[in-house]
């Protein structure tokens, strides 16, 4: 496997609870790519992340991440799950949440240090969240919390960034801010980004490839290659129409 391939799946099958979630899936991702992951719920997008994070082992097939079998606690992979609505009276500041990314998994109380604070400040500035570093997380908006989760994932300087539906529940302007931020990060840090979304449109300018997952199968390629009536109809095994209007893409006949 050459240095440029950071993730590769080879004939991966995953069976859970009697269902086949992955059926001999093959694809690979190169360093520095920005891959948008699309597909209906239950198609295996979260399962994919679990495989890459070493939280799940495939029933058949091989997975390679950065030249090794995925294992838990790999600091080379940053993971930002979808932000949740946090209760307003949590005694936790923005910088505390980001700090978890650094040492939240270590035992002990972890009294702070200047060095630690500096690292947290740096990454907060990178995601443009420094101005509310000391605010209680419950007081922040969805978009602001999402930025914290990205910062939390970035603080260990990962080579791969996995983002699970970071744009859901965000209005269009906030979603675009997050995408712009991610594009910046992708360039500055040359990380490989894999992002799950329900809508390809805001990602069209940013993603260079699309991984479409449905019914246990996957298709990978540029948006123009994958989001076509022919490809999606084959993937969903039913008639799907893709309509382009202006710079907008609409998928009709199937849940994205």
């Amino acid at each position, binding site marked *: 496997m050459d240095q440029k391939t950071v993730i590769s799946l080879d004939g991966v099958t995953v069976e859970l609870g009697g269902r086949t979630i992955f059926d001999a899936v093959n694809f690979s991702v190169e360093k520095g790519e920005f891959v948008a992951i699309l597909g209906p719920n239950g198609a295996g997008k979260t399962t994919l992340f679990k495989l890459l994070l070493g939280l799940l082992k495939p029933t058949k097939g091989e997975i390679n991440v950065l030249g090794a079998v995925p294992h838990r606690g790999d600091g080379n992979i940053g993971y930002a799950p979808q932000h*949740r*609505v*946090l*209760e307003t009276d949590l005694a936790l500041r923005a910088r505390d949440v980001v700090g978890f990314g650094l040492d939240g998994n270590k035992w002990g109380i972890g009294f702070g240090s200047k060095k630690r604070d500096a690292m947290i400040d740096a990454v907060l500035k990178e995601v443009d969240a420094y101005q509310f570093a000391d605010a209680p997380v419950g007081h922040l908006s969805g978009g602001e919390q999402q930025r914290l989760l990205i910062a939390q994932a970035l603080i260990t300087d990962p080579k791969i960034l996995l983002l699970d539906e970071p744009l859901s529940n965000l209005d269009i302007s906030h979603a675009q801010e997050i995408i712009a931020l991610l594009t910046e990060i992708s360039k500055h840090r040359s990380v490989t980004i894999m992002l799950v979304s329900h809508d390809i449109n805001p990602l069209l300018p940013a993603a260079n490839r699309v991984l479409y997952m449905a019914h246990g199968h996957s298709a990978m390629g540029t948006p123009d290659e994958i989001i076509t009536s022919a490809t999606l109809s084959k993937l969903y095994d039913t008639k799907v129409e893709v309509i382009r209007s202006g710079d907008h893409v609409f998928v009709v006949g199937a849940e994205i």
Partner: protein
Amino acid sequence: MITLVDLLRQSFIENAFVAGTLIAIVSAIVGYFVVLRAQAFAAHALSHVGFAGATLAALVGISGLLGMSGFTVAAALGMGALGKRIHGRDVEIGMILSFALGLGVLFLRLYTNSSSETVSVLFGSILSVTHTDILLTLFFGIGTLVVLAAIFRPLLFSSIDPEVAEARGVPIKLLSIVFMFLLAITVAEAIQVVGVLLVFALIVAPAAAAQHLTRKPFSAIAISVALGVAFTWAGLLLALATSWPVSFYIAALAALTYFAAIKIGHFMRPHARAVHEHPGRETRVG
């Protein structure tokens, strides 16, 4: 030799059965809505507030039932005014509950140094309910049922789908207050049967069990009433036969029936979700 029939003829037993049955019926119906509206902890807290009312009543020498009702109604109206924001308010509810209990402890200490009286208020004393209490219970109970019948449909609507109901012109805040008022009265009555601490068994358990067995409102209420009355009769008879406490039997039967209902419910509908999932609980990690 004293037979069971002889026992049943004694008027305090009759009182207990009459009061108990009526209270079980009202509790089961009100309980259906408590479960639907996810207000089980609030109901539990109201009973503790009732404890403070009962002990204060004893201290100043008025009817326990009136004292309890006074306090529970006041607390309930407060909760009702908070409206929807009762959801996920465990901390606030628990603090009020504890404060009320603390007051109750004080009043009780001032009233009597007898620990056994305390224990009996906490765990129920249906077998010593007086004739006046029966009349009050009858009055309150029937009143509650009448009001419930009147507001049944809008209450159901606003419990299941508050936003849509509000948009359709249903006065959800007013209904919320009225319901809490009814709940307060029902709690005060239930305390007589099972005591402050076990109100859950009469108000929440039958309805919660019923909602695992069926989704249809009328069926659920009917099952709820049937279960509640069954526990109460069984509890009374077993308590008379073995002289173990009534509240123990009712609590035990309630728990067994509830967990059995869960199993049966799973068996009947393996992939169904429960009717009343809690909104605003996304951050529970357990």
